[in-house]
């Protein structure tokens, strides 16, 4: 029964991936890419990798899908037909050969790992020292915290890159108001967001808290927060802030800054990113809460895009 489920799932993943690659219409390709991401999340789930499944569905399918849809809408608004041009045969065959070679290499690497040498065996004995149960959080925020610290700065860098594309005269301004132009649509989205935003806040707080012992964590929570914030902006419940607001800047750098400060303070306890004995859980939860806030605001602003000239939100005091 489980084998049948896995086989059907694999076929559906390959099918959606194939359609997303080969369909001509960009919107259809994006729709199948989102379906592909959700099915891939199910595959991670059936491998018992719940953390990865949540990240894949929230970020791989959710945020990336929204970014692709908005990118297409902006291309259309610029007069580009957002369709892929016909590619020459040698390019297709070359891409096929390169991807096939990479898949063979990857498969060889994965198959060469002996089954008994999983990371879990190394990590599990070290977990009691941290005081948390979720081994993925342990790896991300303690044993390989360096990687996660750099990732948070990469995300911040991505927003800086998007902002740096602002046209002359638009800086410092606010992104285009994502609120729906049609009044009845705006009301429907507004009512929905008045329900969704508080739920998203609670859900994000829960995901971080649960992330110590159960699947969850700052990235998943940040995505939920970003979704709530952006839907609220679409319904006109909150306005997007101007990019030079001090409070906004503080929210953006809070998580990475706290992470970096804790890491530097660790030098006193023995080295960069070393947590003092008995303080690990407190510090990890603190880092994760501040990171979730920063990731949420950063993702929402990444979706909102570059500041545009003369864009005035309906509520200039709103924080997004």
């Amino acid at each position, binding site marked *: 029964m489980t084998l049948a489920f896995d086989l059907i799932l694999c076929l559906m993943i390959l099918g959606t991936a194939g359609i997303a690659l080969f369909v001509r219409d960009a*919107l259809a390709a994006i729709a199948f890419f989102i379906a592909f991401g959700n099915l891939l999340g199910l595959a991670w789930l059936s491998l018992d990798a719940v953390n990865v499944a949540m990240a894949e569905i929230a970020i791989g399918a959710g945020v990336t899908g929204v970014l692709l*849809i908005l990118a297409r*809408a902006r291309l*259309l*608004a610029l007069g580009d037909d957002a369709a892929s041009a016909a590619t020459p045969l040698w390019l297709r065959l070359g891409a096929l050969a390169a991807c096939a070679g990479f898949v063979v290499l990857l498969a060889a690497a994965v198959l060469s790992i002996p089954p008994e040498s999983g990371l879990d065996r190394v990590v599990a004995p070290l977990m009691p020292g941290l005081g948390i149960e979720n081994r993925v959080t342990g790896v991300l925020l303690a044993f390989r915290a360096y990687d996660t610290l750099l990732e948070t700065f990469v995300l911040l860098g991505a927003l800086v890159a998007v902002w740096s594309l602002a046209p002359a005269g638009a800086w410092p301004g606010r992104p285009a108001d994502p609120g*729906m*132009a049609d009044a009845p*649509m705006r009301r*429907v*989205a507004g009512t929905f967001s008045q329900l969704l935003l508080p739920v998203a806040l609670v859900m994000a707080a829960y995901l971080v808290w649960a992330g110590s012992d159960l699947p969850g964590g700052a990235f998943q929570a940040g995505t939920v927060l970003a979704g709530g914030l952006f839907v609220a902006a679409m319904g006109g419940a909150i306005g997007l802030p101007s990019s030079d607001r001090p409070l906004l800047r503080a929210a953006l750098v809070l998580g990475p800054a706290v992470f970096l400060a804790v890491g530097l303070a660790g030098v006193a306890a023995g080295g960069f990113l070393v947590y003092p004995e008995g303080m690990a859980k407190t510090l990890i939860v603190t880092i994760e809460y501040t990171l979730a806030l920063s990731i949420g605001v950063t993702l929402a602003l990444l979706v909102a895009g570059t500041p545009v000239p003369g864009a005035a939100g309906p509520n200039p005091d709103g924080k997004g």
Partner: protein
Amino acid sequence: MSWTDAVVLALLGTGLAFYAAGSLGLLRFPDTASRLHALTKADNLGLGLVALAAALYWGSLAVAAKIALVWLFAVIAAGTTSQLLARRTRLDEARLHEPHPDAADSARDGGPR
């Protein structure tokens, strides 16, 4: 097979039948409004039945409450998006019949259909 298993199977089967009917309607109905009608009616009921089956299968009140919340939010989200889609379709159809000068806002709300 206990009676719970029988009920779970019956609920799953009925739920899947509703999903199949909804998908068939999505493929076969001629215009956006009827397709939305097929999707919202059939999918919400189908999801409800599958959720009920899952809650019964796990047999725990905490899990059942979580599944109920998942169902509730899926229904609210589906209702909201179908309202928005229906309104967009109506606006686009009105624009098709009498050309409107502000064609620019169709691109920013996700493009013309």
